[in-house]
């Protein structure tokens, strides 16, 4: 078993890399029709490997598996990559969302399928690399790979909206790059190392016990940088433009997982390293409140289906930040589970957007109405996604939010816990509006002949709604499992 476990981490690097090479080695005209299937295959492989790895690692009782690519990691001080339960769970989420995206892409992507597959692999590699990294600089490099792949994915169809969205994202990301690099430089200046093992609140304060003002500056810069990447308020303005203008298969990737790996995972690392500093956790929590409120309030007034979904992502990232800020194992578990449940319900919602766009040719919700009758599967899937997002039990989103609330309460942040609870009524509000305008309200006679979508999008909607509901229904079992492996 141990050898399987030691082999699994290589999958996350090798699979996208080999697929990338294969995709370019085979002549384009022959690869064209298989490129999206190849992407889906890699995603499915990653999903399976991550599930297996998680189960094996949890059963083995080891904290992490270290590995190097072309070097030995046994020597003292050697750099290494690693997977632990947190990163395996997030790798699982990456695989899951990537699969949902590939299923949608099979229908929505017509041109440049090979380029899509190339960028898809690059994006996967970037996110996997971030999750495997054990020092801040490697993390940063893979973050840039993730970002670059995302820009091109948004802009590749050269629509004016897409170019505008990508440009906005690029500009904001450049700002994030400057902040992060400066922050890293300041930290490096102080500690002489950026490996996770050498960093920590104690390392910053040094022998005197007083922390240098520059270290505070470095942390503030890093937090701001990741906040931009996560689309946290007040740095959220690029996100709806970028996510709305991309092809829906790309929006699923961006909203479903990229903001969480590129942004929220950064906060997980920061809190893990510097969580002893109250100021770090407090700033993450403050970002969380602002993000939930801004995202939800702005989602209330949008009229474009994908824009509502994008603002909803902003808002939900706030909950994830809350869980991380609590700084306790329970909070982290809640945040990670919310990454998963958000990945599931947001992929559902965007699959719905893809279905509506394919069938109606528009995503303006003012023009829709009563589509439940024409598109029962899409309608039902969007209801499961709404209920999971609004934290209505027994859907998956309820349980992850509940754990986050409990962890906030245990951390002594009763006011924040109450705010998180109160703001979730806004989630209900914008989704009720969406439901009313699109599926539930009076029928618009213009769409009398519209039919339900078929093929992979329909299949992915069915599977995703089953995940929204099933993960929630099985949650007591999940809790028992987490308890048995000692996570809560």
């Amino acid at each position, binding site marked *: 078993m141990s050898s399987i476990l030691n082999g699994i981490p290589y999958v996350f690097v090798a699979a996208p890399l080999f697929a990338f090479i294969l995709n370019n080695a085979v002549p384009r005209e022959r690869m064209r029709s298989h490129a999206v299937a190849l992407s889906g295959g890699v995603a499915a492989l990653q999903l399976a490997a991550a599930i297996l790895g998680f189960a094996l690692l949890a059963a083995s009782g080891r904290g992490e598996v270290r590995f190097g690519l072309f070097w030995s990691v046994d020597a003292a001080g050697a750099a290494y990559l690693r997977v632990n339960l947190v990163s395996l769970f997030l790798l699982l989420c990456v695989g899951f969302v990537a699969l949902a995206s590939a299923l949608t892409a099979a229908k929505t992507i017509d041109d440049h399928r090979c380029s899509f597959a190339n960028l898809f692999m690059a994006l996967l590699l970037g996110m996997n690399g971030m999750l495997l990294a054990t020092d801040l600089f490697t993390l940063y490099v893979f973050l840039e790979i993730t970002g670059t792949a995302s820009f091109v994915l948004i802009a590749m169809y050269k629509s004016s909206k897409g170019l505008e969205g990508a440009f906005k994202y690029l500009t904001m990301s450049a700002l994030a790059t400057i902040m992060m690099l400066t922050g890293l430089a300041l930290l490096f200046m102080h500690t002489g190392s950026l490996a996770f093992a050498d960093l920590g609140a104690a390392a910053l304060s040094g022998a005197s016990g007083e922390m240098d003002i520059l270290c505070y500056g470095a942390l503030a810069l890093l937090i701001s940088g990741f906040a931009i990447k996560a689309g946290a308020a007040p740095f959220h303005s690029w996100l709806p433009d970028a996510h709305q203008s991309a092809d829906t298969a790309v929006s699923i990737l961006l909203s479903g997982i990229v903001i969480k790996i590129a942004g929220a995972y950064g906060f997980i690392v920061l809190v893990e390293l510097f969580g002893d500093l109250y100021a770090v956790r407090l700033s993450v929590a403050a970002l969380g409140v602002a993000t939930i409120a801004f995202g939800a309030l702005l989602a209330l007034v949008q009229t474009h289906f994908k824009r509502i979904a994008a603002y909803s992502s902003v808002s939900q990232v706030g909950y994830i930040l809350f869980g991380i800020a609590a700084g306790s194992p329970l909070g982290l578990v809640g945040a990670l589970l919310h990454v998963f449940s958000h990945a599931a319900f947001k992929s559902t919602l965007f699959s719905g957007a893809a279905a509506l766009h394919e069938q109606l040719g528009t995503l303006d919700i003012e023009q829709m109405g009563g589509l439940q009758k024409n598109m029962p599967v899409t309608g039902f899937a969007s209801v499961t996604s709404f209920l999971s997002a609004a934290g*209505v039990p027994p859907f998956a989103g309820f349980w992850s939010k509940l754990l986050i609330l409990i962890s906030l309460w245990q951390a002594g942040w009763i006011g924040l816990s109450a705010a998180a609870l109160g703001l979730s009524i806004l989630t209900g509000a914008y989704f009720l509006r969406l439901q009313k305008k699109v599926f539930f309200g009076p029928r618009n006679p213009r769409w009398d002949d519209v039919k339900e979508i078929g093929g992979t999008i329909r299949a992915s909607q069915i599977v995703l709604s089953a995940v929204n509901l099933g993960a929630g229904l099985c949650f007591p079992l999940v809790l028992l499992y987490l308890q048995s492996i000692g996570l809560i």
Partner: protein
Amino acid sequence: MNGWIPVLCVLVPLLGACALPFAGKRSPKIRNALALALVAAAFAFSLASLPAALAGEPLAVRVKLPLGLSFGLVADALAVFMALTSSLVAAVIVIYSFGYVREYDNQNEYYMMVVLFIGAMMGLVHTTNLIFLYMFWELSAVCCWRLIGFYREEIAVARANKAYFVTVAGALVMLAGFLGIYAQTGTFDLEAMKGFPLPAWAVVLILFGILSKSATFPLHSWLPDAGVAPSPVTSLLHAAVLVKIGVFAYARLFVGTFVIPEIFALAVPVIAALSALLSAGLALRANDIKRVIAYSTVSQLAFILLGISSGTEEGFVGGLLYILAHAVAKGGLFLCAGIVEHSVHTKDITKMGGLAKRFPLTAIAFALCAASVMGIPPFSGFFAKYLVIDGMLAAGHPLLAAVFIIGAVMTVLYLARLFAKVFLGPPAFPDAKEGTSGMVASVVALAALALLLGLAINLPGSLAALIWEAM
């Protein structure tokens, strides 16, 4: 231990509901029969767990989970009483629906949501854990949302959203209260928390949820607005079953589990008194047949809340009996209103009149149900109201008892006015037809039940007394 009976009682309707749309694609007849069978099954399972509950050894399953969560279903006397009441009335309403909704779209969803709602109700009354209580609570709100918006008109969907929004906002505040309790006790399990003295702020938070669900002033306005729903829905959700969730939660949490500060033995009856008088006044002025009955529901719910919060045996037993009596009688009233409105296509009572000639059976059923709600002996409503007011006197609040007697008088007034405007006077719709035999049979059955329960009041009465002892 036959713990599987309460489990089946919850799971059969919940899972069965999901099969209904598929059955409906095959044949509407099979779907309708299955829907009725599922509700009847819930009733049968509750009946099966009655003997053990009476013997004081309720059937139960309990599974411990991490973080102070637990999954438990216990069919104690209170749960069985509520389950029997709701599934019985629901079964009649389902039969009525066969005739009422047959010409509309979205019937598959309709039956699914009705049965799902009954499943949620069964779960809610049996559960032993605050989080699962919240879960079933929200599930019922979701069903309510879809059902109010059944006609898919702009106004219907807007009102559905309003009902959902108000009750869910209330429930979230309640959840905050639950979390507060959890922070102090480390558990969500009701049995583990028995006798825990609850701080006042937690009571207030939870009361928000209860008042919003049971449509009590000042969170009552969604209920009259929800009259845009089809009448069987109004009857099921907004008279017979859903609105009882709040008062049930009061009994389960504040009487059966926690010890709450003294002040609430006065504060809650005062809120109830305000709610009763205000809504009775509104009922007197309303001209929409369903609005009148809906305001009457708000007013009668105040009676139930008063009884249950009185802290005396008479009051508590009266409150419970009124849950039953009101479910039957008010359910019947809404169904009668449905027959009238379905046939004459208006809800404005000023345009009606003389319908007793055209709808003789409906008029009789309406009169009998109205008599029960008014509290006229020997109907079941009389005994319940009498006990509630007696309980208020026993608790030493003669003034509040007097207010409620005024409320009862107003009930007589507005129901008599409604009956006169709709059924008496010169005939306004000479060609109106009374509806299908199933619909008429349903209202007659409920009216007969309202009378029969009054004659045999000692049966539910002794069960209610047993519940009080078990508290």
